[in-house]
């Protein structure tokens, strides 16, 4: 058989029944993120079956249906541990954990904390629209103070979570922030994140045109800037930048190269075969029983 396979971006366009019906609102920033991600994967020269996108639940988390790659649309907040399990079982895959700000910072907050400590070689993409989209407009952990929502009619009074400062404080391996309105820059950042060996966190700002009337396209353009003179290997500088809130710095805040989870587990010390290709080891079981005879 000599079928002509598509190449580049086209490869990642899904062609399953119904693939054309995308459930996002017209004008939503999620479209831009999809676009950025497809370009990134294409530029990296990957094929769909080499990539696995593990998503939580939310508008952002619908991504596996809109990109042609292995995908698992899981549970709210659980993309990171599932992605960790996937990568550990088959390090040959490029594994992306994807979800919204509610998904990753609220329901999934604990997994993010500890994934940073564990450092699996996965990329965590957070579609940060500073609101709960799918459930219709409640505050998220990154909603700005004072914003009124159906469930916070008095205006949010909780301190917004600063994911960048959190990443730097916990010594994450790679921490970046971008705004999806900047296509080329976003592709570059996500490319670096995927290429980075270790956990890479990219907080991707994007407008929710239906529920977030504060953080619009214009707002993000006005309230962000690119860090041109920043050394991502300087942790204190990264922390100082992380604390800046208006304008919000964009770019790679922090990089700390260190051994990954997969590099340190016993499974791959002697043998690089992915787990799914392995069988049991009856000889060792027998040897165990021999040892139990005495």
């Amino acid at each position, binding site marked *: 058989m000599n079928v002509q396979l598509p190449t580049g971006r086209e490869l990642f366009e899904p062609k399953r029944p119904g693939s054309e019906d995308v459930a996002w609102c017209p004008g939503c920033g999620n479209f831009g993120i999809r676009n950025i991600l497809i370009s990134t994967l294409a530029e990296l020269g990957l094929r769909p079956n080499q990539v696995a996108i593990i998503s939580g639940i939310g508008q952002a988390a619908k991504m596996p249906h809109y990109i042609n790659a292995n995908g*698992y649309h899981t549970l709210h907040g659980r993309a990171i541990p599932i992605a960790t399990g996937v990568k*550990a*079982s088959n390090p040959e895959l490029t594994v992306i954990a994807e979800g919204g700000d509610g998904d990753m910072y609220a329901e999934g907050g604990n997994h993010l904390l500890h994934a940073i400590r564990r450092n699996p070689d996965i990329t965590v993409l957070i579609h940060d629209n500073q609101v709960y989209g799918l459930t219709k407009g409640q505050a998220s952990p990154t909603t700005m103070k004072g914003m009124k929502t159906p469930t916070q009619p008095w205006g949010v009074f909780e301190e917004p979570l600063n994911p960048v400062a959190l990443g730097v404080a916990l010594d994450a391996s790679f921490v970046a922030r971008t705004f999806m309105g900047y296509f080329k820059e976003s592709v570059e950042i996500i490319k670096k994140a995927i290429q980075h060996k270790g956990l890479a966190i990219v907080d991707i700002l994007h407008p929710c045109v239906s529920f977030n009337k504060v953080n619009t396209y214009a707002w993000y353009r006005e309230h962000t800037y690119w860090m041109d003179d920043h050394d991502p290997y300087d942790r204190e500088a990264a922390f100082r930048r992380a604390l800046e809130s208006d304008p919000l710095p964009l770019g790679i805040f922090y990089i700390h190269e260190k051994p990954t*989870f997969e590099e340190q587990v016993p499974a791959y010390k002697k043998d690089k075969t992915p787990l799914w290709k*392995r069988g*049991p080891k009856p000889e060792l079981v*027998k040897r*165990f029983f021999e040892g139990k005879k005495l």
Partner: protein
Amino acid sequence: MVEFKEDVSIVLGGAAGQGVQTVEAILTYALKKSGYHVYANKEYMSRVRGGINTTEIRVSSKRVRAFVKRIDILVPFKKGTLSWVKDRLGENTVVLGEKENVEEEFLDKINLVEVPLTKMAMEVGSQLYLNTTAAGLIVGLFHGDFEAVEEYISKRFGSKGENVVKKNIEAAKKGYELGVKLCDEGTIRVEVERDEKVKDEVLLTGTEAVGIGAFAGGMNFLSFYPMSPSTGVSTFAAQHAEEFGIIVEQVEDEIAAVNMALGAWFAGARAMVSTSGGGFALMSEAISLAGMAENPVVVHLAQRPGPATGLPTRTMQGDLNLVLYAGHGDFPRIILAPGSLEEAFYLTAEAFNLADKYQVPVIILTDQYFVDTYYNLPAPDVEKVKFERHIVEAKPGYRRYELTEDGISPRAVPGYGEDVVIANGNEHDEWGDITEDAELTIKMQEKRAIRKLETIKKDAPLPKLIGSEKAKYLVIAWGSTLHVVEEALEKLGREDVALLHFSWVYPLNPETRKFFEGKVLIDVENNITGQFAELLRKEFGIEVHHKILKYDGRPFSVEEVLEGLKGVIE
């Protein structure tokens, strides 16, 4: 003179940290090596030091696998031990030890054989040797092989240096000699026969049987969060992780543990999590994801008494309802509860094939009693374990949720084959994409909750009948109570009473019904409501006639089951 024949039950009791568990280990090892059938089980408090923990060791001429209430020989390491076990003291109980460790009120009621254990230990150099001295003493009573004691001590304390080994052997020797002397003098007479076959058998705990079973089944990924009494299995796996070349990872919480395992299976690994009831409760949502996404997963749940934190180090069969119904929505699952160590080995291994084949959560239910039980058994036959891989290649056009007659869709893994694999916890079409369609919803619900369940039911093995098919009385038991009920039935010695034991707990093969017809049914369960009897009522509409329930956080003893049976049998 006190005399014990055929089957001796020895109990050692002391504070956590006094080394009762070391004695247990030395004794089972050395006595088994000497050719005795041995059984051991411990009960302990949820603390690291202090309190009172006890271990029962049975030494017998015949195979022995069950807990008895009776204490033949009691060795108290600490005052308070006798009060703690007072219900178990009988006329013939001999207390071996120091007067200082016996409460005043018992002094005139018991056979005390004074043995200056502390003094002997001090003579060797420190009170620390109390436990090895006691171990030697017991081995001496049986005229066991002292080399076995030496061997064990060398292995166990080897890493602590030569002197520690030497001193411990010295202490054990002192104890040993005194033990032999007590027999020779005729103070205590122990008559248990050796069985040469025993030497070639293996000595295992429930924890080890589950752990090595998992390895035999091809487990290569274990994620867990520590929780008594399940931690042993994770520790076992960690200790053997380098040898077997697998991943064992302690994670931040049980939710991470189970989801990581789901991810591992999704990518084709064979993953397990080990937990207890509270941890499993936290996994409920993910279990439902496993049901929806048809994501295999194996969970070992070692039960302890609930609700909530309950009694963290004690035993109960109280989480059956939890595992039967955990997770929202309707989907199938498989529940296994080994009764013997052999079953623990084979069933745990098989759990991985079952999960792989049916793509459902498979739960192995044990309990603290089971995982902490030791006995000797012939080494399981590793060749009998078959490795069945059910993974297909994702050829172009692959559909993860293809509608099939038996409800089972071919499962591919990412990276194997040209096409992609899409799994989904939302209701989905055959490709794995979200659907809102009514017809498709019906088809997918029926695929999972009806057709697949029926397929599993048909394949489900029947329970094991022990005794006559014609018996009038049928005792029903599941999981860890197997041996205790078996021995109680032996003691009862009535041909009209049989045992039906379930180690495949759910779903039940419809043919199971035939066992119940015309019988007087007696349910034995280590919980307060008779959860398994309720399951039988629900599945088959049958009513058990009697329930023998225990729910004080302790395991059934042979005597209790026997007494219970006598109470309900004419």
